[in-house]
């Protein structure tokens, strides 16, 4: 399959990316990494996982564009001081991004912990705690040169022992860590500021894994004390440190005065970070309406996941700015492809896919067209991994043909078990419309509504369900998508998929890598692994005195400040 390089789309992407010149970034990265091989493949890397919730669009009314690519402020432009009050959707289940992959944990801890590499404006890795990385033996060996003088919040300096202990913990605790470290044959200290990471095969993709929030670097003593559990102390190298955590009341972070700032300009999670606020207070507010109200009444400076029904009312508020977040997550229905489910029949899956008209489903999930966009892609148009491979299977809206295909697939009217939840409105609403469309094609759907905790538990059992809906980030590298490995609910087993994943992991040429990604995406569609419906945005709001926020995809508040 040939990758889709659409000049019109490229132009659109460049318009959206009114930002640091990409080539300049690449040059900077290449220099920082000290080798050409990795720099080449950096153009094609990102990150990813799944989360319920959210929905949105790229051309919203008065709201700002999301891409993590809006202009960054010049360093030193902001004003220090003040307490930022952030209304978050709930209490993080743990304050340890290696231990849990919950998005709310990753967002809040991003201020406290840092990684060797970090995502830049185009979601590609840039050195953060690294000074440089020497790539040897065609990507089999990474010599990691650590920055000197980087201090942890406890005053100790970050050294090779801390990095090794943190990565060993990551290898054990994180799902992504386990995947990466299956290829690792050596993690050794060369000296206090140099670590040698050796793989058993070329692994050009390593920085894409190590830029993700689960690959944080913490002091050796803390990593060793919690090898398989949540860490006991929250000590990182980030611009903010934890002052107090009162579950369900607030998490208070304060400026880390000894933060070792990089010299480069701010660049999403990479580059220089400045802690302008004296304090950031994350306040769990589970009621969406109350988050909106608190934003209007100036009890919060920032609120995430606001109701799209409130868009006009919030837009009319003179002191409130809105952000429609795209790229964000894409949403769709996963089939249970294990032998225990009737959906292991590929022809049956394809029949159901053929029936679907995507637009009404997207509208049911996310409201008007400002908050969603259609397309067959796994990675958003703004990313380097965009391809429309497999589009011939997308949005076919042909129930008559689907009916014939169902019969040909030997479907006997057995109810298809659909597990859904009302806890996330998109999940239930999209499910109802999809169910209706499938039933019009002759399928019988047993729509079982349950709470999210039950759904998450039930989806792990191969014999308990046939279809469920969830979302996945569209802005990370496709290799990080959780639904690709055969261990994730959905259980997609395919030898060519495995080969392609290996090729992507090893490949360092971005053009070649995009070819493999396109073939993988084509295969994903031709196997009708899931019914990908649309990308959906989330709506965020903030007081207009908050400057330097720049509407990133994953929110964070270093380099942001107040200006009355």
């Amino acid at each position, binding site marked *: 399959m040939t990758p889709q390089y659409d000049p019109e789309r490229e132009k659109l992407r460049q318009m959206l990316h009114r930002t640091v010149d990409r080539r300049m970034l690449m040059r900077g990265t290449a220099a920082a990494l000290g080798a050409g091989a990795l720099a080449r493949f950096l153009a094609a890397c990102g990150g990813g996982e799944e989360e319920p919730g959210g929905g949105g669009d790229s051309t919203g009314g008065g709201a700002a564009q999301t891409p993590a690519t809006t202009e960054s402020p010049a360093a030193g432009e902001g004003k220090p001081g003040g307490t930022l009050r952030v209304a978050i959707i709930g209490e993080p289940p743990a304050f340890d991004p290696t231990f849990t992959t919950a998005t709310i944990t990753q967002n809040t801890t991003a201020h406290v912990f840092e990684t060797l590499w970090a995502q830049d404006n185009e979601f590609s890795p840039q050195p953060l705690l690294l000074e440089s990385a020497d790539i040897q033996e065609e990507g089999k060996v990474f010599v990691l040169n650590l920055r000197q003088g980087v201090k942890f919040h406890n005053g100790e300096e970050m050294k090779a022992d801390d990095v090794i202990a943190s990565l060993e913990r990551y290898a054990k605790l994180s799902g992504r860590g386990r995947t990466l470290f299956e290829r690792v044959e050596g993690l050794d200290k060369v000296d206090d500021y140099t670590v040698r990471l050796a793989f058993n095969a070329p692994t050009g993709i390593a920085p894409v894994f190590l830029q993700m929030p689960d690959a944080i670097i913490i002091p050796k003593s803390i990593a060793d004390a919690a090898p398989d559990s949540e860490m006991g102390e929250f000590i990182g190298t980030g611009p903010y440190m934890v002052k107090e955590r009162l*579950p369900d009341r607030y998490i208070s972070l304060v400026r880390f005065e000894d933060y070792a700032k990089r010299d480069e300009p701010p660049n999403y999670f990479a580059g220089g970070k400045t802690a302008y606020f004296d304090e950031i207070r994350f306040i769990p507010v589970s009621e969406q309406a109350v988050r909106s109200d608190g934003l209007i009444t100036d*009890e919060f400076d920032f609120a995430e996941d606001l109701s799209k029904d409130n868009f006009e009312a919030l837009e009319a508020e003179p002191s409130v700015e809105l952000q429609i977040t795209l790229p964000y997550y894409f949403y769709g229905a996963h089939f249970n492809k294990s032998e225990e489910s009737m959906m292991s029949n590929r022809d049956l899956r394809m029949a159901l896919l053929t029936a679907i008209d995507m637009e009404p489903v997207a509208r049911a999930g996310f409201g008007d067209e400002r908050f969603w966009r259609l397309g067959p892609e796994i990675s958003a148009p703004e990313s380097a991994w965009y391809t429309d491979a497999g589009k011939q299977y997308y949005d076919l809206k042909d129930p008559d043909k689907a009916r014939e295909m169902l019969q040909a697939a030997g479907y006997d009217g057995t109810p298809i078990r659909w597990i859904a939840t009302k806890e996330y409105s998109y999940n239930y609403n999209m499910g109802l419309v999809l169910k209706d469309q499938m039933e019009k094609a002759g399928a019988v759907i047993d729509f079982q509504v349950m709470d*999210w905790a039950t759904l998450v538990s039930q989806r*792990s059992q191969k014999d308990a369900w046939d279809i469920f809906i969830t979302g996945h980030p569209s802005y990370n590298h496709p290799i990080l998508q959780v639904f690709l490995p055969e*261990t994730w609910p959905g259980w997609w087993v395919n030898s060519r998929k495995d080969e392609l994943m290996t090729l992507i992991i090893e490949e360092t040429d971005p053009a070649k890598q995009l070819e493999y990604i396109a073939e993988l995406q084509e295969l994903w569609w031709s196997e009708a692994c899931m019914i990908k419906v649309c990308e959906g945005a989330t709506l965020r709001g903030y007081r207009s005195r908050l400057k330097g926020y720049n509407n990133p995809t994953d929110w964070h508040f270093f380099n942001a400040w107040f200006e009355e």
Partner: protein
Amino acid sequence: MTRYIIRRLLLAIPVMLLVAVTTFLLLHMTPGDPVSVLLGPDATVEQIEEMREALGLNDPVHIQLLNWFRDLARGDLGESIFLGKPVTEAIAERAQPTLLLTLLASLVAICVGLPFGVISAVRRGSTIDVGAMLAAMVGISMPTFWLGLNLIFIFGVKLRWLPVQGYQPLSEGLWTSLRYLIMPALTLGAAQGALLARMTRSMMLEVLHEDYVRTARAKGVSERRVILRHALRNAFIPLVTVIGLTFAVLISGAVVTEQVFGIPGAGQLLIRAVNRRDFPLIQGIVLIVALLYVIINLIVDLIYVFLDPRIHYS
């Protein structure tokens, strides 16, 4: 009396045991897994299994039950899976907002319910009676969250008199703390106040037709004294039961109100625990609420003695 109290407390033991076993079994029969929620959506089946094993969740249910009872016998309610601290400590931390809210809501219920109930009974059939009972009907029927969100909209968003959500402990100052609790207390107290008004009215109507009330009036006792001294005091015995139960209901019923107003109390703790399937925490909260019911019922029974000298326990 002391023997009576001891006997009642001893009788509470089988009740608590029944509650404990029922809660435990119901929870473990309910689908849902704390580990899946704790480890996040990317966790592999292998990771989930390892953590379940580490937490003892893969043991047979009867073994888990025995382990829990063994800890309970030592006064240990276990450790919260999510908070990583003892359940007793987690509940104690959340007790202040819930108790304050319950006290204030009870005050609202009593201040609204009793006077309106009495006036409605005395002025039976009048405009006040019809109006009060109509308001009571609305109060009982109105969903708590709907009333709460409307109060937030009016007093928080439009008038900006009160904060829309959150909580400040008493240590931050009485008024600072109260400002956060006024709307939740009104929300929570409204339905119970309405219920109390209706109960008070019907009790008073019954008592006002008793012979001793007619006798008091015939003796020339003032109407005010007849109502407050002779009628209300006698109507009060069943009302104390209602007030006691109201208090118990409010303690356990603050769940929705705390959720709407973002109050970090025991109700919110419970709902979070249920959503996350934090088994030890849910079991601990349910046990403590059950214990509160037992204690409140005992206190109500003891108050009878002071209200009516004819009642005595041997």
